[in-house]
């Protein structure tokens, strides 16, 4: 039975659970407001205009979050996306320098990403015995390795004809194009997740794979689509990253997979599958982006942001666990 809350579909959520979910997303909104106020206090430059100007640097990771949310909801993981971004960006830059017209460069970047995603998808669906972590660990090394070979000894490439890339880095008023694309993707992925059959199937497979299989869901197809879309979105991220940096090198996209996973987990999407909501992840993604911009403005050691993300990440999972444990203890005490 499909619960309306969109949290799980293997049980009708009780009111208490519903309250907890509401409070998690509610809490995230409060944290978001707190972060914005905090940044405004520490940095006088933290104005809407400046934030929007700096946003493109950080936004491309959000493209990776959307499909990563689906993959985590499936109970799988993909740690190869950073490498896919690197390979697509490299391919795009090299083809652009070979004189390919810009629309074709876009197609190349998206295609390379999609193919990489499809390779992951094929391996994961054909060899269900293997954890997706280990398959994507292998492909992570391979994809970046291919990019390293393509880049050659220098290890980096700069785009010579950046007219096309500049055109997609443009703005409407103060808003960069990319910002709208992020919003559109957010709406599309949320609608798929909550209202459409595919999103419900993802939740079903993540909750209980065998039951989903026997109730007629094509489990392999669901997983295949998730990983292929992951590749496609990695291509999109690579496109905008190239437009922001006019080049690619062997370290492009390093750690993106972890950031995307961190956004999802902080947003309440469990890595064990079947749990979580798109909205929470989107809010947490913007929390992280805003925090990065704010801390970047006051010239704080840029690595300190990692410390904050790490602590947030652990506490986002630890606190609900502890409260559940305390509740369970009280229950057994009451029963005695």
């Amino acid at each position, binding site marked *: 039975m499909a619960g309306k809350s969109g949290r799980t579909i293997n049980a009708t959520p009780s009111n208490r659970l519903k309250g907890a979910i509401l409070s998690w997303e509610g809490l995230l909104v409060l944290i978001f407001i707190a972060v914005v106020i905090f940044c405004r206090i520490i940095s006088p430059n933290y104005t809407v205009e400046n934030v929007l100007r700096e946003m493109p640097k950080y936004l491309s990771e959000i493209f990776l979050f959307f499909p990563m949310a689906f993959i985590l909801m499936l109970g799988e*993981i993909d740690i190869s996306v950073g490498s896919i971004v690197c390979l697509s960006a490299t391919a795009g830059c090299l083809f652009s320098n070979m004189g390919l017209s810009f629309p074709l460069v876009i197609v190349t970047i998206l295609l390379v990403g999609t193919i990489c995603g499809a390779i992951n998808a094929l*391996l994961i669906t054909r*060899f269900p*015995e*293997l*954890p997706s*972590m*280990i*398959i994507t*660990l*292998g*492909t*992570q*090394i*391979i*994809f*970046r*390795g*291919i990019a*390293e*070979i393509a*880049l*050659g*000894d220098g290890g980096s490439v700069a785009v010579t004809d950046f007219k096309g890339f500049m055109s997609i880095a443009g703005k409407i008023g103060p808003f960069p194009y990319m910002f709208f694309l992020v919003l559109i993707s957010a709406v599309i992925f949320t609608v798929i997740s909550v209202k459409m059959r595919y999103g419900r199937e993802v939740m079903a497979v993540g909750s209980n794979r065998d039951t989903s299989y026997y109730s007629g869901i094509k489990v392999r197809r669901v997983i295949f689509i998730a990983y292929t879309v992951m590749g496609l979105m990695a291509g999109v991220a690579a496109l905008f990253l190239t437009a922001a940096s006019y080049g690619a090198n062997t370290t492009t996209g*390093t750690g993106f997979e*972890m950031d995307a*996973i*961190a956004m999802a*987990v902080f947003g309440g999407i*469990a*890595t*064990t599958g079947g749990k979580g909501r798109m909205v929470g992840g989107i809010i947490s993604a913007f929390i992280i982006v805003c925090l990065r911009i704010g801390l970047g403005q006051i010239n704080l*050691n840029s*690595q*300190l*942001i*990692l*410390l904050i*993300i*790490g*602590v947030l*990440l*652990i506490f986002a*999972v*630890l606190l609900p*666990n*502890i409260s559940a*444990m305390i509740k369970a203890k009280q229950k057994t005490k009451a029963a005695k």
Partner: protein
Amino acid sequence: MKKNFRELSLVIVLVLLVGAVSIKNPSFLSLGNFAEILKNNAVTMILALGMLCVLLVGGIDISVASTMALSGMSVGLLFKFNIISSTPLGFLIGIAIGAVCGLLIGVIVGYGKVAPIIATMGGMYIFRSLAYVISDSQWAGADALRHFPNFALGSFLGINNCVWIVIACYIIFFVVLKWTKFGRNIYAVGSNPIAAEISGINVAQVKLCVYTIMGTLAGLGGVLATTIYASAMPSMQLGSEMDVIAACVIGGVSMSGGRGSVIGALLGSLILAVIGKALPLVGISAIAQNTVKGLLIVVVILVNVITQRAMKKRSLERREM
């Protein structure tokens, strides 16, 4: 029998690999060269032992590279600012820092019941960030470290000090995992945590110990890396956790827990080490190294699955007979 078969096949791969490279380049097959390989891969080889234990209990630890950076950087700074000058003390401090990092992760995973990938991802960010913060993004070079790098140059009975540490670690872990109660508990927890809990094993405690061991080894690895490369920087060992996991996986350690051995970890890390050294010798450019490494990982795990499927099918056929 099956386990021996798996380890035997790894030995065959290793022998074939060494043989093929030696034909192409006879200088490869020398004792000095092997000592060099062992020394340069000492860090990965030692960490593979800790990762083996973590994978055996069904967990994973991706924070080890950051732990190494924190411990190596701390020791590097202590030497740089003349606070300590004794090599053994440097080792002890580095190992202690690693142990504390591991303990933190262990408490979060064991008692906080946080998924290992999340807890160690948090740890990965936190420890790496601390390494940058304490060093103020500066690094400690060979002159700042003074006599500390001499440890990696020195040798005892003709064998490099670092290689001795590797050998000692492997002997200790072989004995502990095979013949002690704690070692068997690790396998029990990984094979079936619920059964282990019911039969009286404190699962949370075993997990805590395993992550603490991993952290301790990472602390040791960080100090070793500092002496071997004669420098400490906050970005050191970036991404090396994947090498360690890869070594274990090639060595046949299961990611779902309960299966794997010290010999497997040894063979896995040796194969990776030999490939790293051999590729330039056989004329494959060093930039192709990662691609070959990645392909090897994928091929090894796929072949493993395919043979397992074939074995299962055969045993089913036999039963029908």
